[in-house]
């Protein structure tokens, strides 16, 4: 083909063909209708390896329209390889506008974080999911786990939490912390830190989960109960950080540890880069941000 080199006209809008998008949309609709239930779908080969977000990309490709504004984050950051590549991919195949600002996005595709800024009505959060089955590590038989979901036999999930307490004295699971959706299905929220679990509860945004290799889609519709499993005498708790973000001074946010040198020096900074930047733009300062001058751009900042 002699396609012009500056466009990729031979691709359908958003890469997937329309029949595939219809199929995925049907799966999404079913998933929304049964919150937390894993809907099988015919996952396609995508131009990226499994584990790089093929499930999330297919979900995004099926719901994105020309007017959407896309934000992509990887561990909270807009500027890491996975985020940059996926953002570029949709710019190329859908010509959509992109942003790093959570508030401006209509679709946020995420790998393992939920933005600090509360999501609004009309926004869609698309999760990239490696292993959708929360019972997998305790019960390897897929036939059995499906039956357990169908019959609401979730005692096993608590076995895992029991083991945590027995070994560590508290529930030590810090990510992919199991939740119960709308009082019915137990769901793996993907490897997000449990810090983000409360944000899923009664969220005003639609949350969609895509697992490409495992060929499953599931969803949490807006205003849906999402409860983290726990014990009466060991209630669910989120991680707490002893210090604020070193750059923006933010409290009550999820922090990443950054090693500064080989002398043991380190700092803790916001995992959500957009959030951090906006706070610094608003004049907030952490102890390592420097007192004067314009706030450093995130791409030149200390989080690399």
């Amino acid at each position, binding site marked *: 083909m002699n396609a012009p080199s500056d466009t990729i006209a031979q691709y359908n809008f958003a890469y997937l063909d329309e029949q595939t998008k219809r199929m995925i949309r049907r799966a999404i609709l079913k998933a929304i209708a049964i919150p937390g239930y894993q809907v099988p779908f015919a996952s396609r080969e995508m131009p990226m390896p499994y584990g790089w977000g093929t499930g999330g990309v297919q979900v995004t490709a099926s719901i994105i329209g020309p007017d959407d504004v896309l934000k992509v984050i990887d561990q909270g950051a807009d500027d890491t390889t996975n985020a940059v590549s996926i953002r570029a991919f949709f710019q190329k195949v859908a010509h959509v506008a992109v942003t790093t600002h959570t508030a401006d996005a209509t679709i946020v595709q995420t790998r393992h974080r939920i933005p600090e800024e509360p999501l609004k009505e009309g926004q869609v959060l698309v999760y990239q999911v490696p292993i959708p089955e929360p019972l997998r590590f305790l019960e390897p038989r897929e036939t059995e786990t499906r*039956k357990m979901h169908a019959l609401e036999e979730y005692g096993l999930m608590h076995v895992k939490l029991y083991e945590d307490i027995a*070994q560590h004295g508290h529930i030590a699971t810090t990510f992919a912390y199991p939740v119960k959706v709308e009082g019915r299905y137990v769901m793996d929220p993907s490897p997000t830190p449990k810090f983000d679990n409360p944000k899923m509860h009664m969220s005003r945004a639609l949350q969609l989960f895509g697992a490409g290799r495992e060929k499953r889609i599931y969803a949490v519709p807006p205003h849906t109960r999402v409860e983290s499993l726990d014990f009466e005498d060991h209630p669910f708790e989120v991680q707490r950080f002893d210090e604020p973000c070193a750059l923006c001074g933010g409290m009550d946010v999820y922090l990443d540890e950054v090693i500064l040198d080989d002398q043991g020096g380190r700092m803790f900074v916001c995992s959500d880069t957009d959030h951090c930047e906006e706070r610094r733009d608003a004049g907030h300062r952490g102890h390592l941000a420097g007192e004067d001058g314009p706030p450093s751009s995130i791409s030149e900042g200390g989080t690399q």
Partner: protein
Amino acid sequence: MTDEPLLRVRSVSKFYGNRIGCEDISFDLWPGEVLAVVGESGSGKTTLLNCLSTRLMPTSGSVAYRMRDNAFHDLYRMSEAERRMLMRTDWGFVHQNPADGLRMTVSAGANVGERLMAVGDRHYGRIRAAATDWLGRVEIAEDRIDDQPRAFSGGMRQRLQIARNLVTGPRLVFMDEPTGGLDVSVQARLLDLLRGLVHELGLSAIVVTHDLAVARLLSHRMIVMKDGHVVESGLTDRVLDDPQAPYTQLLVSSILQV
């Protein structure tokens, strides 16, 4: 307490193609009664056990269980959810190989606690206390509670499996060669433990075994099976002391005397 059986078995048959697994088996099991099903390998005793415990759908016949509301329910007309609920609350199943009945990669405490969590107990302290208590009752030291059964001996695993089954206070326990793979001394300890627990808890049990000594020690009543059929049944000491059927006489006379 009503004077009715716990389990009513009527004309249960299981065919594998045109091969007989077991044929036309009927009996009642009463509360507190231990029934031994004996016979050699291939006699159909395990097929029967599986048909009774909903693990295998019989070709014909009915198995009715008296639930806690005293109403009889046909096991094979229940929904799968009800059957599975029954299996993990009111029933127990002790496998010959403990690895089939345990989760080998979670701790002993969690193995025992799982059934409590499955019926909705959400208090860690209480679950752990119950697990500790049950490990004690099956003579497993308390300090092994956080060890995985992979680190246990065969006899300990079997005792753990029993604790795991009994923690929810079941009324009926199925046992498939519970002392099968164990040393003689370990067997004696397990048998004695089982006997004590069955007495103490007033359990009903169906024990499949090829070992007549096990049947003698544990059971009130016996069924002798051969080629899928019951050849003799009755009070355990009557069957063993005065066997009537040729096959039972052969079995009894084949016991090695020490």
